[in-house]
C-alpha cells in the first residue's frame, strides 16, 4: 500500500492551512448547513414535545364524546330520512358513569353571554360544567371553590370566574360572595380559577363557569356540547370507548350517532403533523448542505487550477491517479468533517439559546437529525470533491509542471 491515510490527512491539512481564506469559506458554508439542520429540527421537535406536554396536562386518559358520527359511510337511513343526529343529554352523560372503566364524566355546555356587574359589562364565554370538570381538565382553583357537587339537572345561581374576568368586573374589590349578572340572571361568585394561560381550547382566565343545568336554562337548550369522560387508566380507554358507544347507541334507539375521540388519537394526529413538519424543515435545511457541497466543488476546482504545478510535481515524484484522488478527496473530507463538527456546535448553541429564550419549548435536535446532518455533510463533501479530484488526477504531468 502506497501513501498511508495519516499522510493523506497531514498533506491535506497542510493544504488547508496554506490557503486559509479558501478553507474558512468552505468551513463556514458547511457549518451553516449543519447548524441549520440542527436548529430547525430542534425547533420542530421542541414544538412537537411542547404539544405532547400540553396534552399530557389535559390527561391522556380523556375521551371526548361529540354528537354526530364523523365517518365516511355508504347508505345511512338517517340521511335518507333527513334526520339530524340525536342530541347528547344529561341523562346520556349520567348513563356513562355506570361503567367500571370510567372514573369521571363531565358534561359540558358552552355559549357566549354578556356578564355584567355594577355597570361593567363584557361578552364572555360561559361554560356549563359540573364539579368533576375541575379534576377532568386538571384545572386549579385560586380562591374559593369550584362548582358544587350537586345533581347535574339542578340549576344553581353560582359562578366561578376566570381571573381576568374577575379583574375586569371587580377590579381590586373582593369577588367571592358577590353577585354578578349573566344575561338577565344573577349568580353568586363562589370561586376564582387559578390556572394560568390557555388550556387547549379554553382560555381559563377569560371564561366563567356555571352549573351545566344553569347553562342549559341560560341558553334555553336541553342538549350538551360535549361529554368529557375520564377513563380509569390508560388500559381502560379502549373498554371505556366501547362502553360509551354501546350505551349511547342503546339509548339512541340503536343508532350510532356519536363520535368518541380519544386524547391519544388527537395526540397521534398532532404528533404526525409536527413530526412531518420537523422532517420538512430538516429537509429544507439539508438543501443548504447541498449548496455547501457545490461551493466545496467550485472552490476545489479553483484550487486544482491554482495548484496545477504542485499536482504535476507530485506526479513527477511518483504519485499515481489514485493518490492524487486521495489527496483531494481527503482535503474535502477533512473540511466537511471540521465544518460538520463546528456546525453541530453552533447548532447546539443555537438550540440552547432557543431554550433560554423560550423555556416552554424543549428545543433539542433529535439524534436522527444530528446523524443525518453529519452524514449528509460528509457525503456531499466527498461527492462534490470527486469532480475536482478527478480533474486533478487526470492532469498531464508535463503540462501541469509548466503550470498549464
Amino acid at each position: 500500500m502506497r501513501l498511508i491515510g495519516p499522510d493523506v490527512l497531514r498533506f491535506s491539512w497542510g493544504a488547508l492551512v496554506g490557503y486559509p481564506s479558501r478553507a474558512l469559506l468552505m468551513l463556514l458554508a458547511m457549518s451553516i448547513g449543519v447548524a441549520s439542520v440542527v436548529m430547525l429540527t430542534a425547533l420542530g421537535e421542541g414544538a412537537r414535545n411542547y404539544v405532547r406536554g400540553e396534552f399530557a396536562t389535559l390527561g391522556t386518559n380523556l375521551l371526548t364524546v361529540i354528537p354526530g358520527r364523523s365517518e365516511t359511510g355508504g347508505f345511512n337511513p338517517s340521511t335518507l330520512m333527513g334526520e339530524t343526529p340525536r342530541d347528547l343529554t344529561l341523562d346520556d352523560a349520567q348513563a356513562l358513569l355506570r361503567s367500571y372503566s370510567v372514573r369521571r364524566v363531565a358534561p359540558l355546555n358552552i355559549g357566549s353571554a354578556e356578564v355584567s356587574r355594577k355597570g361593567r359589562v363584557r361578552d364572555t364565554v360561559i361554560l356549563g360544567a359540573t364539579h368533576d370538570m375541575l379534576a377532568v381538565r386538571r384545572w386549579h382553583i385560586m380562591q374559593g371553590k369550584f362548582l358544587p357537587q350537586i345533581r347535574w339537572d339542578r340549576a344553581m345561581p353560582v359562578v366561578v370566574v376566570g381571573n381576568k374576568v374577575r379583574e375586569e368586573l371587580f377590579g381590586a374589590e373582593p369577588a367571592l360572595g358577590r353577585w354578578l349578572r349573566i344575561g338577565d340572571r344573577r349568580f353568586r361568585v363562589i370561586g376564582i380559577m387559578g390556572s394560568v394561560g390557555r388550556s387547549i381550547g379554553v382560555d381559563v382566565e377569560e371564561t366563567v363557569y356555571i352549573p351545566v343545568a344553569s347553562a342549559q336554562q341560560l341558553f334555553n337548550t336541553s342538549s350538551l356540547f360535549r361529554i368529557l369522560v375520564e377513563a380509569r387508566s390508560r388500559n381502560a380507554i379502549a373498554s371505556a370507548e366501547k362502553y360509551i358507544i354501546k350505551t349511547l347507541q342503546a339509548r339512541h334507539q340503536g343508532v350510532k350517532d356519536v363520535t368518541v375521540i380519544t386524547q391519544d388519537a388527537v395526540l397521534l394526529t398532532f404528533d404526525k403533523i409536527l413530526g412531518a413538519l420537523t422532517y420538512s424543515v430538516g429537509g429544507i435545511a439539508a438543501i443548504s448542505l447541498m449548496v455547501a457541497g457545490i461551493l466545496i466543488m467550485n472552490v476545489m476546482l479553483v484550487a486544482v487550477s491554482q495548484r496545477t504545478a504542485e499536482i504535476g510535481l507530485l506526479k513527477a515524484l511518483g504519485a499515481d491517479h489514485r493518490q492524487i484522488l486521495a489527496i483531494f478527496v481527503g482535503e474535502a473530507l477533512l473540511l466537511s468533517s471540521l465544518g460538520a463538527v463546528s456546525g453541530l456546535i453552533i447548532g447546539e448553541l443555537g438550540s440552547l439559546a432557543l431554550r433560554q429564550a423560550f423555556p416552554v419549548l424543549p428545543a433539542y435536535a433529535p439524534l436522527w437529525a444530528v446523524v443525518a446532518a453529519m452524514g449528509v455533510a460528509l457525503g456531499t463533501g466527498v461527492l462534490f470533491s470527486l469532480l475536482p479530484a478527478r480533474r486533478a488526477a487526470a492532469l498531464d504531468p508535463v503540462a501541469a509542471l509548466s503550470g498549464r
Partner: protein
Amino acid sequence: MPVIQLQEIHRDFQVGDQVVHALDDVNLKIEAGDYLSIMGPSGSGKSTLLNLIGLLDRATSGHYILNGQDVTALSDTEQAITRNRTIGFVFQAFHLVPRLTAAENVELPLMLAGMPVDERRSRVAKSLAALHLSDRAEHKPDQLSGGQRQRVAIARATVTEPAVLLADEPTGNLDRKSGLDVVGILEALNDRGITLIVVTHDAGLGQRARRQLHMLDGRIRRERQGG
C-alpha cells in the same frame, strides 16, 4: 547492460491540424553511471526526450527499456511506481511546495512510496545533511536562497536513491556561483554511480558531461565525448 535504451522512438504532437514530430526516430543507449548532456535550440526536442526518459510522457511509437524492463506499455500506475523508485528530477524552477518545510519537501517522494515515518525521517535527515542543509530543514522555500532551494530539490530527487537523475536546466535560475555549486553536487552524485542526464542551453554546463548530445528537429544530430 545499459540502464536506458531507446529504440526507434517517435513522439508526435497534434497542433491544430498539423502533426509535429517532436522526436523522430531516436535511438539511444545510456550505461549505468553515465554523465550525459542534451543540448540544442528551443523546439529541438530535448525536453520531450527528457520527459520521455522520466516516464512523464509516452512515445507515439518505439520502445523504451529501463533497467532491462520494457516500460513502454506499463500502465500509468506502474509507470508512476517506476518513476518513484528509479528516477529523480531536478527542475529549473525548483518546484518546491511553498507551504512545506525543506524537510517536508524532501520527504514527499518517500511519503508517496508509503515508507514508514521513522525510516523516512532518518533518510530525509541524511539527505539534507549530505547537501549541508541540516540547519535549513525547518525553513520554508521562501526563507531559502536560490542555491539552497535547488539543493533541497536535489535532496528530494536523490532521497529515494534513484538509478537515474534527470536535471532540466538545473542552473537556469541561479547566479554563477550557486550554479557552479549545484553542478558540483550533481557531478559528485554521478561520481558515486548515479546516472546523470542534464538538459541545458548552457554550452559551458553541457560540455562538462562525458557524453554530449546535440539535438535538432527531434533528432540526435551529433554526439560528442567530453568531460
